[in-house]
């Protein structure tokens, strides 16, 4: 267990175990087709978790509770901007990214310049976004996913994998590159690990942190667009289910909530792990009360493998 890459290995191992368990409990659960479908769902959560991951890495109790609201908002904006037409996709993507970036910017400014704790700022922002959704839904015509977008999310694109999987892989590579091979990546870890030292080394701490929130908003927006492609039509509050699970995915990926260490590769595994777990629970025929108890207890059990706090006595 001493392997330094432990969280990633643990997550991968657990995924395999869970798939085997799923196949045992409900034959067919681990079929190639089903795994692919689970991956699509995991990709949606994983993309949200990418932004969440960055914000958490940046330290100072970084967390973004507004991602769920941004996902919903983006799905609605995208639906309206493309209204079922492939020709509208580009505009929709740009519009959503802009909206996500703007929300992230406001979060970032609140957190850095006004120094509101991230949990509070983004929780407040979530409330605002939920209100905004109601206003927007109230006067704007329907939004449907363009066929191109739906196809991108659900239909095989290349080597039998749908576009969203490739997009997720690309995001994974991009994140790995960002975090390991760019000065910005070094900087993210530095402010997450020791903000004061980063400041004294001339790093633009505030700008960087604002950028992290902006990126989180943008990743959530991308997830929102993809979610529209997945469901076909937008509806209120689609993103709600991503708020806390995206954080759990990050934790299961080996990034502690205190920031400064970890990475995105683990988070991808964490997102898959969580999705598989939810999938198994769906297919097992027990009462909802039982499902929730098992889910809660399993989450706790899995957390024992990850990022436990330091013992008081060393």
């Amino acid at each position, binding site marked *: 267990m001493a392997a330094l890459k432990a969280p990633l290995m643990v997550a991968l191992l657990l995924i395999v175990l869970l798939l085997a368990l799923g196949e045992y409990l409900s034959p067919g659960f681990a079929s190639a087709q089903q795994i692919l479908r689970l991956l699509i769902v995991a990709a949606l959560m994983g993309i949200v978790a990418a932004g969440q991951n960055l914000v958490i890495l940046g330290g100072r109790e970084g967390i973004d509770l507004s991602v769920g609201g941004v996902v919903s908002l983006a799905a609605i904006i995208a639906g309206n901007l493309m209204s079922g037409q492939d020709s509208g996709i580009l505009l929709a993507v740009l519009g959503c990214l802009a909206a996500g970036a703007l929300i992230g910017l406001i979060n970032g400014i609140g957190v850095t310049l006004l120094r509101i704790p991230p949990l509070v700022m983004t929780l407040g922002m979530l409330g605002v976004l939920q209100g905004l959704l109601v206003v927007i839904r109230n006067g704007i015509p329907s939004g449907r996913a363009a066929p191109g977008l739906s196809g991108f999310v659900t239909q095989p694109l290349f080597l039998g994998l749908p576009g969203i999987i490739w997009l997720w892989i690309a995001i994974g590579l991009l994140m790995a590159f960002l975090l390991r091979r760019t000065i910005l990546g*070094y900087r993210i870890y530095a402010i997450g690990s020791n903000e004061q030292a980063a400041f004294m080394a001339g790093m633009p701490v505030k700008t960087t942190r604002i950028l992290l929130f902006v990126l989180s908003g943008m990743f959530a927006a991308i997830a929102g667009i993809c979610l529209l492609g997945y469901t076909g039509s937008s509806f209120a509050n689609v993103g709600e289910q991503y708020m806390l699970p995206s954080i759990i995915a990050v934790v299961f990926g080996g990034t502690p909530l205190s920031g400064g260490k970890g990475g995105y590769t683990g988070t991808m595994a964490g997102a898959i792990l969580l999705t598989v777990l939810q999938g198994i629970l769906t297919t097992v025929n027990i009462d909802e009360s039982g499902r929730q108890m098992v889910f809660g207890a399993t989450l706790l059990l899995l957390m024992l493998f990850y990022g436990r706090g330091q013992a008081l006595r060393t």
Partner: protein
Amino acid sequence: MARLVAKAVSKTYGATKALRRGDLEVEAGEVHVLIGSNGSGKSTLCKIVAGSVRPDSGELLLDGKPVTINDPQEAKTYGIGIFYQELSLAAHRTVAENILLSNLPGGVFVDRKQLVATASRYIALFDGVTGEGFSAGATVEALRPDQRQLVEIMKALSTEAPILIFDEPTSALDRAQVDRFFDILRRLKAEGRSIVFISHRMDEIFALGDRVTVIRDGETVATKRIDETDAAEVIRLMVGGESAGMETAARAPAANKAAAQTVLSVGNLSGVGFHNVSFDLAAGEILGLGGLHGQGQSAVLRALFGASPPSSGSVSLKGEPLDANSPRATIKRGVAYVSGDRRRDGVIAGRPILENVTPIHALKQRLALAAPSSLRDRAKPALEALRTKFAGFGHPISSLSGGNQQKIVIARWLIDRPDVLLLDDPTKGIDLSAKTDLFQLIRKLAAEGMAIVLYSSEDAELLGNADRILVFNGGGVTRELTGADRTAFNLYQAAYEAA
């Protein structure tokens, strides 16, 4: 029979042997000094005795009886009180609450009256030297570092334990505070208490101790009676075979370079903690900032660096005005700053050495991509110049010893040469050999034309290295010592003059 005995105590953190074989014997009624280089394991040994670190092996005996101490609470019941080097205070609580934290008077409820009354007894011990704003009801957050250290001292004293451990209790105190503290310790000794005392200051050790135990590389190497040994022997024991080069720190400075061109010019600079500071600094000059601890020296350096921008006054660098509103801005102009508080200001803990050594280079060269191999090549010469010992660039900086961590932090400034180097007590908490390496390098850099401002809390470092010393008192410069005036006596006298 010795009151406290630690026998062959050991402790390993991951791959680090923090303590290999710690032995310690403390009698009743003695001040027992524990000395050793940084990282030799002194604090670890103390924490094991105090229950906050779990030993891997070894034995503890109290009055001859073997005991197992499972946590600090238990240590207290065994009569062990401790001053922690890194303090153990709750910032938002009051001084009184902190002093008596684990032993609040009253039952279910806190007896406030009793609390203040009891705490005041310990505060009264330092009557007259606690400084402004220090009271039973003050929150620790609002106190200065030396005042916090006093609270931690009072907290240790309040245990009234027969065995008291003080792990570097004087590092932030001024002389008056130290004198008072030593009086108290002598009184406690006379009462028959056992006192373990740690300090890196040789003079304190010989002023106070009865016996000294030297610890090297996690191993106890000797215990001597103070009156039967001397500083040279202690240092020899501390460093083992390689005692050569220790004297270099005290070597006379290079010739005065006043004639050289002015690099940094500071006029009437004021800010939080200092006022109306003016000086000119020439290329190749080492300007010392002296005086009692906490008289504005650090504040000036941080202001010049842009970490806490000055409120008024002028600064010019090589003839151009310097707008010191952020480190980022001043770094780009060629200013460098090394803080002695590496854990707070320097080390990016948990990250690889490469990431720790390259940020300034990346900033100055406006790098966007991090190409590890080329970064490594850039960093190597700077690390070698400091004789940094490290296994590889990919290892986390926390895998290094404190002195080597500080070298990494310093090296980051040297990859691209700065014009002005601000040193803010850079050797705080690092051991003699690392100090020697560092001052050799500083003098070399000066010789090559770098302008250097050095603040040190150790007078010897100033006297041995600075071409000129500005003595600070109450936030302003009260004396300037040049040439033959740079004597310990003058420095001492100037520091104690009224502001």
